[in-house]
């Protein structure tokens, strides 16, 4: 007799509804932002140091890599913010039905995508 | 099989449905060391499927309601072979038992006054049949059984009952003093076989609707307690009396509560006619279940059935309105959509009479004490053995049970069995020990099965058994065809003794359990067939084409089937209630 029982937790085999995907993205973006804070603080430090520093940061952001890092952090921030607002609505009892939850998930994705694209254009 | 482990309790209850858990609760609360042995987790028991309610004169819908009226209805419904002392007990103690359930937390529906909501059910009257339709069935929407079963489980958790969940009792252990001293059971998860020793063994294993091909019963309703009693040589009573519920969903067999008709639904045939007006001018769709089921079959036989096969009738509910349906019958709306592909808010539901309830069972006293007969035909108690609920035949349902009386039966007599056993144990009742031989005798069946070299498959034999019962022992019965059916059953029995499990592993071996259940199904089916053949009259649910009349001269009796001699005896019906006058048999019309 095999005493160690297996557990069916093969995550790839399960169907995850949209609200679940929102939730995991909320987590991931949260971690991205937490790491990103280091960059933001560094850039803030330099930009406030002097006019020269401010120019350095501005020029730096013209480069693709820094642009990409900043855009990534911004994207995470935007998504985390929008999904967070969805959470706050749910706390008030809005969107706690199955349909409501699905609808608000779609809205969250839609609004985030639009804002993230706009942020990318703006940063460029 | 060698020596097996022994576990001891003062009392064991076999079965974790409504009756079993009510008995266990009573015992545990009074300090008796009790274990409830249940083959499925308790809330998965068939009580969970009960829908309409629990009938009881709590005087909510009608402040003048009287338990004696309920008693009158029940005696009449039983076609006069219900024991009047037991019915008196049930109807008079009922309100207390129902209030106890409410105090435990059962979420009954409510009236504007805050009292328990009661709805009309079939066969209910006021003032001994003279005051018109009564509304006496206490309901939790149409999920009363679910609410009741969960409440009882919760109460047992509170009380601290020991549950042996997913343990399957195989057979009774009987010692040389003819005392029942426990059961042999198998822990399904591990496959370990254990002797569970007890001073009092309560069989609360429910019904056996699975002997029929079309039934409202759960897949687990295989008559395990009846099988155990029969194999131990004990008789069973009124086994020919099987209730066919008028409204099982056509094709699927799932139950549609009588509460639908109580709330104002009615049956129509292919011509759109409300045909029950012809068969029961007064009660119409709320006549006794046997009457309604027979009327439906006659409609179909006379060519007024619905659908392409003209083999069912329709239950009309849409006129009740969406709001009432969603408030009072939400479960029915759900079930109809799932199993009939019909939305009852818009369309009528296709229904057929479907095997629903076993009125017969192990004969017992009001206190659940199991009975047999001595050579002179006198009642004799079986030491250590008790029964309650559908497995028992107290008998409060006689030849036909009224809707809503089964839930009342199981709480009242589950409780009564608990009270009675506790009293006996407190009085110092001790039973003897079982010898190794006694235990081995109870193990014999399992050993035979394990070493079987047979070739029959359990599923195939079971299917043939169910078809045979459906065909020859259904709503209408006939001597010749039952004779044929009995012969077929003999052959099926031969095959049942020759099955191959196809799986000898230990852990959660459901094939083994199903093979053991098949034996019980066969025992019940055979007792049913034999008793049906021998009762030469029509009464209640037992309707014969060759003996169409009720025969009070010869058959105002319980039938008692003795398995060892294969003989049908008779037992007197109790006509001696303690506080009211005897209700004399009358012609039964609705």
């Amino acid at each position, binding site marked *: 007799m095999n005493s160690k029982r297996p557990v069916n937790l093969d995550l790839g085999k399960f169907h995850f509804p949209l609200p679940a995907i929102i939730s995991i993205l909320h987590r991931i973006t949260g971690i991205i932002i937490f790491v990103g804070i280091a960059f933001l603080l560094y850039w803030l430090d330099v930009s*406030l140091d002097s*006019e020269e520093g401010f120019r350095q940061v501005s020029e730096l952001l013209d480069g693709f890599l820094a642009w990409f890092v900043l855009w990534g952090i911004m994207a995470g921030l935007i998504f985390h913010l929008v999904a967070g607002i969805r959470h706050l609505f749910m706390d008030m009892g809005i969107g706690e039905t199955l349909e409501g939850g699905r609808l608000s998930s779609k809205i969250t994705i839609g609004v985030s995508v639009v804002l993230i694209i706009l942020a990318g254009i703006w940063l460029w | 099989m060698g020596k097996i482990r022994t576990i001891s309790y003062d009392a064991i209850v076999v079965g974790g449905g409504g009756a079993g858990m009510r008995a266990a609760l009573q015992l545990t609360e009074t300090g008796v060391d009790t274990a409830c042995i249940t083959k499925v987790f308790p809330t998965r028991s068939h009580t969970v499927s009960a829908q309409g309610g629990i009938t009881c004169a709590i005087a909510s819908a009608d402040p003048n309601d009287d338990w004696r009226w309920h008693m009158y209805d029940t005696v009449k419904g039983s076609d006069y072979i219900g024991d009047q002392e037991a019915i008196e007990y049930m109807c008079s103690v009922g309100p207390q038992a129902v209030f106890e359930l409410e105090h435990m937390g059962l979420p009954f529906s409510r009236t504007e006054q805050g009292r328990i909501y009661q709805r009309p059910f079939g066969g209910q009257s006021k003032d001994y049949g003279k005051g018109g339709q009564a509304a006496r069935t206490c309901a939790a929407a149409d999920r009363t059984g679910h609410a009741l079963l969960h409440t009882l489980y919760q109460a047992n958790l509170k009380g601290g009952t020991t549950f042996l969940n997913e343990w399957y009792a195989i057979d009774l252990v009987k010692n040389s003093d003819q005392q029942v001293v426990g059961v042999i059971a198998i822990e399904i998860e591990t496959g370990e076989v254990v002797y569970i020793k007890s001073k009092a063994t309560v069989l609360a294993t429910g019904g056996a609707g699975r002997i029929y091909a079309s039934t409202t019963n759960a897949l687990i309703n295989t008559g395990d307690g009846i099988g155990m009693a029969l194999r131990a040589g004990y008789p069973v009573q009124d086994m020919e009396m099987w209730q066919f519920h008028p409204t099982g969903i056509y094709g699927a067999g799932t139950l549609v509560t009588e509460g639908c008709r109580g709330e104002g639904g009615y049956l129509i045939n292919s011509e759109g006619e409300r045909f029950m007006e012809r068969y029961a001018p007064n009660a119409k769709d709320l006549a006794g279940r046997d009457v309604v089921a027979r009327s439906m079959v006659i409609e179909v036989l006379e060519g007024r059935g619905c659908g392409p096969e003209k083999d069912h009738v329709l239950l009309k509910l849409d006129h009740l309105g969406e709001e009432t349906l969603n408030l009072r019958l939400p479960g029915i709306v759900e079930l109809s959509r799932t199993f009939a592909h019909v939305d009852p808010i818009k369309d009528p539901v296709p229904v057929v009479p479907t095997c629903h309830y076993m009125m017969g069972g192990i004969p017992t006293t009001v206190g659940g004490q199991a009975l047999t007969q001595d050579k002179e035909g006198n009642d004799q108690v079986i030491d250590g053995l008790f029964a309650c609920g559908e497995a028992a035949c107290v008998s409060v349902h006689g030849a036909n049970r009224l809707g809503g009386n089964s839930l009342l039966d199981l709480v009242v007599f589950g409780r009564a069995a608990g009270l009675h056993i506790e009293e006996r144990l407190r009085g110092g009742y001790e039973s003897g020990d079982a010898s190794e031989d006694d235990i081995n005798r109870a193990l014999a069946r399992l050993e035979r099965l394990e070493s079987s070299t047979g070739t029959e498959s359990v599923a195939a034999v079971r299917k043939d058994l169910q078809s045979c019962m459906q065909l020859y022992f259904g709503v209408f019965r006939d001597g010749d065809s039952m004779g044929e059916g009995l012969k077929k059953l003999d052959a099926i029995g031969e095959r049942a003794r020759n099955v191959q499990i196809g799986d000898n592993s230990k852990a959660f071996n459901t094939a083994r359990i199903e093979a053991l259940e098949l034996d019980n199904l066969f025992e019940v089916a055979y007792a049913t067939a034999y008793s049906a053949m021998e009762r030469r009259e029509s009464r209640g649910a037992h309707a014969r084409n060759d003996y169409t009349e009720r025969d009070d001269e010869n058959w105002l009796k319980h039938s008692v089937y003795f398995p060892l001699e294969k003989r049908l005896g008779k037992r007197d019906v109790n006509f001696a209630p303690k506080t009211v006058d005897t209700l004399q048999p009358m012609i039964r019309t609705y």
Partner: protein
Amino acid sequence: MVKTVTNLGRSGVYDWMIQRVTAYILALYTLFLFGFMLTTDLSYESWSALFGQTWFRIFSLMALVSIGAHAWVGLWTVTTDYIKATAPRFLVQATAGTAMFVYVVWGVQILWGH
């Protein structure tokens, strides 16, 4: 009742409240900054003027402390969900905690140091 020592508050409600209150602060701060950057012609002058005002320094510090609390509750939840062995979980939590401390001190230095 489940007892833990590494969560921020004494209870679930407390943690939950902290996360919500900080969420509002951070949302406001973020929206304000975005708004500022979109409506103002961004230059060193305007930028350092903004960060030169005391109220904005306080607002920024509040945001920074909020990040610490908000992230602690969030990261604590994530680590207790996914890291089941005590030692690595504690290590990650300690690292995150240190980072938060560094962020706050560094932030104070940035805000008042220029």
